[in-house]
């Protein structure tokens, strides 16, 4: 079953990217901060693109196991 703690979702990445672009467009942040934001933006953009590139639809079936736990089996398309 999927881990409890997950990397940021695409949605979070995109929201953060929008916020970064907005912050860079205003003049309130100092230069060090601006460069740090830019680096973060580039990194998030990269992970978002990767997520899109290597994505394949995954199909699974959820059942309740005999012990009451969750059981996830892969399904064919």
């Amino acid at each position, binding site marked *: 079953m*999927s881990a409890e703690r997950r990397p940021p979702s695409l949605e979070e990445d995109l929201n953060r990217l*929008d916020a970064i672009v907005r912050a860079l467009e205003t*003049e309130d942040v100092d230069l060090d901060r601006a460069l740090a934001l830019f680096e973060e933006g580039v990194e998030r953009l990269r992970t978002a693109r990767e997520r899109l590139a290597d994505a394949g639809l*995954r199909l*699974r079936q959820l059942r309740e196991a005999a012990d009451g736990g969750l059981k996830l089996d892969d399904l064919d398309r």
Partner: protein
Amino acid sequence: MSLSLSLEEAPRQRPSTVSEVVESARVVVEHAFPPLWVEGEISNFKTYPSGHWYFTLKDPAAQLRCVMWRADARRVPATPQEGLKVFARGELTVGTKRGELQLVVRQLLATTEGGFYAIALERARAALEKDGLLDPARKRPLPLYPRVIGVVTSPEGAVWHDIVAVVGRRWPATELVLVGARVQGDGAVEDLCRALALANRLTALELLIVGRGGGSKEDLWAFNDERVARAVAASRVPTIAAVGHETDVTLTELVADVRAATPSAAAEKAVPERADLVRRLAAVGAGLGSAVSRRLQLAEERVRHASTRLGGAVDRRLAATGERLRRHAARMVASCDARLAARQADLSRLGASLDALSPLKVLDRGYAVARDDRGRVLRRVGDFPPGRAFRLRVTDGEVPARAEPRP
């Protein structure tokens, strides 16, 4: 002596037992009447813990005891209320325990429009409304890019395949999790509730689709059940409901965060088009690049501007302070006033603090001002002979420093 006084004639034949009479009547009645429809008004309705229903059908002149066994009663979508006019189909018999004529009801229909379905629907709707579950303000937005989507439907139906096809085409960057449930007939309500609860235990779940394909009103009925609607309303993650065709609207769909006309439409609402996102990422990338280069350009201009201003401001202030000092010194000499001696000390303190004061805003941004032990600003390389001690004024204080020998 015996008392031979007899007021009544003794029976000439052996009397029947009660059981025999009632049993004979039962056989006669059951043979005499084929299954029949009876119209009447419900009264004295009772549900037993066993699930059997007992009630009386009556009209202005007569009444008839009725029983409906659990297996038949559970197919009636709503419990009848007192006074409801119904058509009951069943077989006549004689109940042996009470010796009563009794109709064993197999099928019960309300005479009102829509029958028991309409009654059950209205009751469930009213109960959901009372708890605020139909309030449009409850509707939650769907996640834009869900990574894990649960699908509660029949593993055999076309719904799952439709959703897999649409999501696979639009947005393969996701995981679809089938949570199987019977969607019609006996046990469908319990199955759907169980599947909805099970799906919600999956911590990674971000969106839940519940649905089935088209069918008769009876086929879709489980989705009008109050328990199913409540299970959908209780979902931890946002829900999309797609039940039947466009024209069928079930309570489940009214409660869900989003209603889709068909399962394929639900899949389209669940995920974005990949191509749209590729475009959006490209736009964000371009925005990032141009914003940072604009920002760099701006910073460069500011540095140029600040350094010019810094130099100018310090020079001007020093000149002004020097001028004041000179003026005061001259007056002091002229008057030899003792009070002026005290003011001279104030003035030199003022001069020092004026120095420190003006560049503070600039220091905030990370610049520092180097000064010698007399407080003079050191500007040029020549001001720093190797080994010279000086003080660096930074934004929150001073740092002692020394010039390194140059190679």
